[in-house]
C-alpha cells in the first residue's frame, strides 16, 4: 500500500514537472531556431524564471465566464482536458521490474482510450463558449480526432501484436533492436497521429490564430486557459512516453538496463519532445482538407500495411 502511494506521488510529481520542462524547452528551442533570444532576464540564467512569472500572471487574472456561455460545461472543460493525461502517466512504465504505478493487463488500450477522452475537453470548451470561432474550433477538433484515432490504434496494435501482449511492461520486455526497422512505419504513424490528436503544429488547424483566433480556447483566460496549455504540454509528455514504450524499447539502453532504465526512458522522451518542438518551428500549418487527406490516404493504409507486415513476420518466424 505504501509502495503504491509512493509511486502515485512520484507520478504526480512527474506530471507537475515534466510538462513545465517541455514548455520551457519550447521557449528556448524556438527562440534559438528562429535566431532570437526570447526572455533572458527573469531569474538570471537564460530567463528560467519566466515560466514561473507566467504562472503567477495566469493565477492573478480574473476568472471570466462569458454571459451566454454554458457555465458548468465551460468550467468543467479544462479539467476534462487535463486529467486524462495524468491517468495515462500512471500506466507508463519507466523501468524494469515494477517501476510503474499501475501494471494493467490491457495497458495499451487503457492509454489510448483515456487519451481520447481528453479531446472531449476541447470539444466541450468549443461548444460551451457560445462563440462562433470557438465552435468552429471545436468542430475541427472533433473531425481531427475521428480521422487520426484509427491509424493511432492500428499502429499501437501492431506493436502489441509484435510483442504478443497488451501490457506496456510486457511490450518493452519483448522489445529487441530489430523492432526498429520492423516497426518503423508503425512508429512514424503513431507519432504523427498522436501529434494530430494533440493538435500540435503542423496539425494545429483547430486553433489556427489567423482564422479563428484561438479556436476552442478563445473565451478562456487566467487559470483555466493555463490548464489548457498545461494539458497540451502534458499531452506531449504522454505521447512521447507512449512512443518510447511501444516502439523505442522504453528502458532498454546500451548498458545497465536495470539500474539506469528510468534514465534511458527519460532521455528518449526528451529527444522525442525536442522533435515535437522542432516540427512546430519548421512546418507550416496544414489546411483542413490536407489534414483529412493525410489521415485517410496515407496514415490509415500505411498502418494497415504495418499490421499486415507484423502479422506475416510474426507467423513466419514464430
Amino acid at each position, binding site marked *: 500500500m505504501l509502495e503504491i502511494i509512493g509511486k502515485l506521488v512520484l507520478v504526480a510529481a512527474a506530471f507537475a514537472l515534466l510538462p513545465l520542462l517541455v514548455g520551457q524547452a519550447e521557449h528556448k528551442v524556438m527562440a534559438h531556431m528562429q535566431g532570437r533570444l526570447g526572455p533572458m532576464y527573469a531569474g538570471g540564467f537564460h530567463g528560467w524564471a519566466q515560466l514561473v512569472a507566467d504562472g503567477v500572471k495566469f493565477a492573478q487574472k480574473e476568472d471570466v465566464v462569458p454571459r*451566454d*456561455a*454554458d457555465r458548468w*460545461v465551460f468550467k468543467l472543460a479544462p479539467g476534462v482536458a487535463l486529467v486524462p493525461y495524468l491517468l495515462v502517466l500512471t500506466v507508463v512504465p519507466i523501468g524494469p521490474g515494477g517501476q510503474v504505478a499501475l501494471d*494493467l*493487463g*490491457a495497458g495499451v*488500450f*487503457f492509454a*489510448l*482510450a*483515456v487519451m*481520447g*477522452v481528453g*479531446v*472531449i475537453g476541447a*470539444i*466541450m470548451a*468549443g*461548444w*460551451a463558449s*457560445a462563440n462562433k470561432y470557438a*465552435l468552429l474550433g*471545436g*468542430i475541427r477538433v*472533433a*473531425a481531427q*480526432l*475521428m480521422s487520426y*484515432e484509427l491509424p493511432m*490504434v492500428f499502429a499501437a496494435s501492431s506493436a502489441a501484436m509484435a510483442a504478443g501482449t*497488451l501490457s506496456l511492461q510486457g511490450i518493452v520486455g519483448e522489445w529487441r533492436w530489430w523492432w526498429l526497422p520492423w516497426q518503423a512505419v508503425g512508429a512514424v504513424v503513431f507519432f504523427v497521429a498522436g501529434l494530430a490528436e494533440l493538435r500540435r503544429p503542423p496539425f494545429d488547424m483547430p486553433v489556427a490564430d489567423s482564422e479563428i483566433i484561438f479556436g476552442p480556447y478563445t473565451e478562456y483566460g487566467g487559470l483555466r486557459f493555463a490548464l489548457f496549455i498545461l494539458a497540451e504540454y502534458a499531452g506531449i509528455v504522454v505521447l512521447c512516453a507512449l512512443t518510447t514504450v511501444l516502439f523505442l524499447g522504453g528502458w532498454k539502453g546500451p548498458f545497465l538496463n536495470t539500474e539506469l532504465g528510468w534514465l534511458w526512458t527519460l532521455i528518449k522522451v526528451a529527444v522525442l519532445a525536442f522533435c515535437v518542438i522542432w516540427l512546430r518551428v519548421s512546418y507550416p500549418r496544414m489546411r483542413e482538407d490536407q489534414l483529412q487527406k493525410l489521415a485517410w490516404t496515407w496514415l490509415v493504409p500505411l498502418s494497415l500495411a504495418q499490421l499486415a507486415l507484423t502479422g506475416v513476420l510474426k507467423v513466419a518466424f514464430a
Partner: protein
Amino acid sequence: MSGQEIVFTLLGVVAVGSGIMVVTTRRLVHAALWLVLSFGALAGGYVVLTAEFVAWVQVLIYVGAVVVLLLFGIMLTRAPIGDSADLDSGNRWAAAAVAAATAAVLVTVMVMGFRDERMPLRAGGGSAGELGASVFRTWVLPFEVLSVLLLASLVGAIVLSRTGIGPGRGPGSGEGDG
C-alpha cells in the same frame, strides 16, 4: 454485501441515472455529455466484473469515437446553447412505454435464466487473452456474421452519402454499374 457489490451497485446507479438524464435533459449537447458519464460508469462496471479489456474498448469506441461523432454532428448542424423547446416529442409516452416494456423483457429473461445464481469472479477471467480465445474459437461464426453485418452497413452508408449513383446521373455512371 461485499465491497465489489457495493461499487458495482453504485456504478449501476450512476449509469442508469445519467441515462435518464440523457433523455430528459432539455439541452442537446448536455444529453451527449451525460452519455459520456453513462458509458464511463458502464466501463467501470466491466472493470469490477474483471472484464478489463471490454472496459477499455468501451471507453475507446463509445466515449472516444461515438460520442465525439455525436458532438460533431450536433455542432455541425445547430449547437444551441440553452434549452431547446423542440426536444419534447408528442411520442414521449409511447417511447416511455416501449422502453419500460423492453426493460421488463430483459429483466424477465435475466431472472428466468439465472435466478439467484452466483458466479465467482476470477482475476483475469475477462482478460484480452481469454476473450480472444472464446471469440475466435467458440464464437467464431457469430463473430464473422457480425462482420458481414458491419460490411453491409458500410456499403449502405456509402450508397446513402454518395450522390450521382444510379442510371443516367453523374459523370461516371454507365450501364450495369451498381
